[in-house]
C-alpha cells in the first residue's frame, strides 16, 4: 500500500472515530441525566427537642416527584423507613421536620429518639444533583427562636 493510500485510510479512520465520539458523547451524557434516579445521603445532624432538624428539598424542574425517606441512627439501624413519604410539586419545596418523622408512630408516653441521624432520600428522575437542591438545617434552640443554625449538604449517588 502506498503512503498516500495509508494516509487516506488513516484520515478516514480518525474521522470515523471523531464521528463516533460526537454521536456517543451527548447520548451518554443524556442517558446519565435521564437516569433511573438517585439516592441523596445526609449525615451528621443531631435531632432532638433543643436541636431540631429540617430537611429541605427544592424541585427546580417542572415535573413533580416523590421520595422514599429513610432515617438511621449512627449504628445504621433504621428508625424510619417511609416509601413515597415526600411529595414535591413542580417548582416547589418540601420541608420535612425530622423530629416529627421520629415521633409520628410513637404513643404519647414513648420518648422519641434523640441523637445523631443520617438521612437517605431515594427517588426517580428528575431527582438528581443537577435538578434538585437538597439540604438539611440543624437549629440550636427552639425552632421558632433559634440561637444558631448550620446547613448540611448531601452526597448524591446514582441508582444503578
Amino acid at each position, binding site marked *: 500500500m502506498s503512503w498516500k493510500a495509508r494516509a487516506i485510510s*488513516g484520515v478516514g479512520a480518525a474521522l470515523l*472515530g471523531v464521528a463516533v465520539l460526537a454521536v456517543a458523547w451527548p447520548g451518554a451524557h443524556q442517558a446519565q441525566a435521564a437516569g433511573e434516579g438517585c439516592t441523596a445521603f445526609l449525615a451528621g445532624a443531631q435531632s432532638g427537642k433543643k436541636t431540631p432538624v429540617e430537611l429541605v428539598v*427544592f424541585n427546580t424542574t417542572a415535573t413533580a416527584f416523590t421520595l422514599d425517606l429513610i432515617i438511621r441512627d449512627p449504628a445504621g439501624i433504621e428508625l424510619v423507613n417511609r416509601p413515597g413519604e415526600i411529595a414535591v*410539586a413542580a417548582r*416547589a419545596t418540601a*420541608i420535612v421536620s425530622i423530629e416529627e418523622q421520629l415521633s409520628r408512630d410513637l404513643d404519647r408516653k414513648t420518648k422519641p429518639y434523640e441523637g445523631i441521624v443520617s438521612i437517605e432520600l431515594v427517588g426517580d428522575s428528575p431527582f438528581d444533583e443537577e435538578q434538585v437542591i437538597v439540604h438539611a438545617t440543624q437549629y440550636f*434552640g427552639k425552632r*421558632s427562636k*433559634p440561637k444558631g443554625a448550620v446547613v448540611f449538604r448531601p452526597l448524591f449517588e446514582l441508582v444503578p
Partner: protein
Amino acid sequence: MAISRWLLLTALTILLAGGTALLVRGTAKADGDVTLYVSGFDIGPKKTASLRLTNVSPSVADVYSIQLTVREIDQGIVIRRPVGDGARLFRGQTLELEIGDVVDQFRAGFELSGWDGAVQVVAFGTGGVLNDFGPDTVLVEAVQTEGKASYGVVVEWRVEE
C-alpha cells in the same frame, strides 16, 4: 518514512477534530443561560433574608441587569415577578437585597399584605458584553437571620438547557 507520514497526518487530523470539538463545546456552554437558585430563605416579621450580589467581572463592560423571581414553597406560586429592566450591577458594585422588603413592595403594588413564610429565590442576569452573568463573574452571599441565629443558606448555579 511512509509510516511516519501516515502517523503525522493521523495526528494532525485528530488534533484538528479535537480542537473543533472543544471550540464547539465551549461556545455551547457560553450560550447557556445561567440561573442562580437560592434555597432556605424565610421571610416575615422578625426574620431577615439577605441576598448580596457583587459584580467581580474583570471587564468594566460587563454591566448586568439583575432580575429576581420569588416563589412560595408549597406550590411554587410566584409571589414576586421580575420588574422592568431589573437592577443594574456595575463592576465592583454590590446589590444588596432584603428579600422580605422586595416581596412586600411588589405585593403592596397589588394592595396585598406582606408575606410570611419560607420562599425560594431565582435570579438571572443579562447584559454582560464580554462575560456572562454566572459564578465566574458574580459573587453571591445569602444569609438568613431569625431569632439569634444568622447562617448561610444554599446557593446553586444552574445552566438552563
